[in-house]
């Protein structure tokens, strides 16, 4: 499988997390310094609104609500940026670097505690994911917890210190993992700690740092494609990734402050 770089979207400032819209309209949401930016399919800034605290991550729920992960809280907006709700928890939501959804719960990656928090839809804490191990959490030397959720509610968490993507049940049970260290074979993850970020769609999509690399794996861990290496600044790290329903892959270049878009090349 091959991909080509088809578009570069100017982030117009700092970029942390990105997410695609829920209904395949081609809109892209970005968590920026202290705001959410929405880019249309052509890469133009369509709208923006402020967040109360610096935005670390963003996710779009099935109902179109936009969830912004922040320091100490999550803010929930409607698609126009009107604030609907705020979940505050100085203990469980210290630095929310990823948000995701299962059918009946909301997941928040708290990098300050190296864990994924699971809440019911009303915000009641249910359980942690990724903490029940001898290390007391995910190994994230780069300070970002990132994960994706598949259609069966399986949670795929990047565990860069172990060079793995780990699979968890929503209740926190470790189901298995893909990935291994290898500094030569591109099927492996290199460096001290990769992959740093992950997205789930029809495959497991990952980003790595030093040198920056985007890859796709099947769900049994077989390498499907090295999507890109070259277009990124060599100093990039914690490159957020999102994949839309047309399998377009969006990746943040954290140095150039841009979102690079890749499309699958037909066989």
């Amino acid at each position, binding site marked *: 499988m091959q991909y080509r770089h088809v578009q570069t979207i100017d982030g117009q400032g700092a970029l942390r997390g990105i997410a695609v819209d829920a209904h395949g309209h081609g809109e892209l949401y970005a968590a920026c310094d202290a705001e959410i930016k929405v880019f249309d399919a052509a890469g133009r800034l369509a709208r923006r609104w402020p967040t109360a605290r610096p935005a670390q991550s963003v996710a779009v729920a099935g109902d179109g609500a936009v969830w912004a992960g922040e320091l100490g809280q999550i803010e929930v907006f409607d698609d126009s940026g009107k604030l609907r709700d705020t979940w505050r928890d100085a203990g469980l939501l210290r630095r929310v670097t990823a948000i995701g959804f299962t059918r009946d719960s909301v997941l928040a990656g708290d990098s300050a505690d190296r864990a994924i928090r699971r809440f019911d839809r009303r915000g009641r804490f249910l359980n942690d994911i990724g903490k029940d*191990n*001898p*290390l007391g959490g995910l*190994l994230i*030397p780069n300070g970002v917890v990132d994960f994706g959720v598949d259609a069966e509610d399986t949670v795929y968490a990047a565990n860069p*210190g*172990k*060079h*793995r993507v780990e699979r968890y049940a929503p209740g926190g049970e470790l189901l298995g993992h893909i990935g*291994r*260290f*290898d*500094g*030569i*074979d591109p099927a*492996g993850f*290199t*460096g*001290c*700690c990769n992959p740093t970020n992950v997205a789930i769609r029809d495959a497991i999509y990952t980003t790595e*740092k*030093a*040198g920056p690399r985007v890859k796709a794996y099947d769900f049994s861990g077989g390498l499907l494609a090295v999507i890109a290496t070259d277009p990124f600044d*060599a*100093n*990039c*790290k914690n490159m957020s990734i999102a994949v839309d329903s047309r399998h377009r892959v969006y990746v943040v270049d954290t140095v150039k402050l841009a979102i690079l878009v890749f499309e699958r090349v037909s066989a």
Partner: protein
Amino acid sequence: MSDDPTRRDLFAAVARGTVLAVLGGGAIFLVRKANGQVVWQVDASRCINSRLGEVGVEACNLCTTECVVALSAVRAVNEYSQCGRCNICPAYFNIASAVNGLGQPSEKLCPRDAIARRPIGKVDPEDPANNFYEYVIDEEKCDGCGKCVMQCKEPLGLGSITLRVRYDRCLNCNRCSISTACPQKALMQLPVSRALEPVGIERPE
């Protein structure tokens, strides 16, 4: 004839003042140096091995080759509070070497084997990746070649290892031969009060 100073007089006065200030400053500096009050120090933000943004280049080993002290007065120091304690440390392993049966790189990076890797706490026999590791630099072996520093810095690592002048070895030369050779001007002389902690950093419990 006017008593007002001419422009030439003014320039001459300024020049005399400047010369006196430089001589005075130099004299004060020399006195402080003679009293051991100034020291050489590596500026990590200038050293190419630790400076951010320099990736994919060979480590500079001028601190090893130029220092008049045996091995070098400059050694690599791991600041444990900044260390990720990773399973696979790019400063310890040659991460470009083939993977061995343990799933680790088969070669070490340090040409003098000066870094020791020890698990923190009890090793999980089922999964060695389920551990933190501490990386301890043996300064008796280290010659300050900078390879580990280059591999430790961001984005590959966390930048916990830097090169530092060890004051129990440094002869505090007037013209440090490393500073003369360093193209980055990364060796600088500072008053002791502004120098980094001259003694070794405490190891974790």
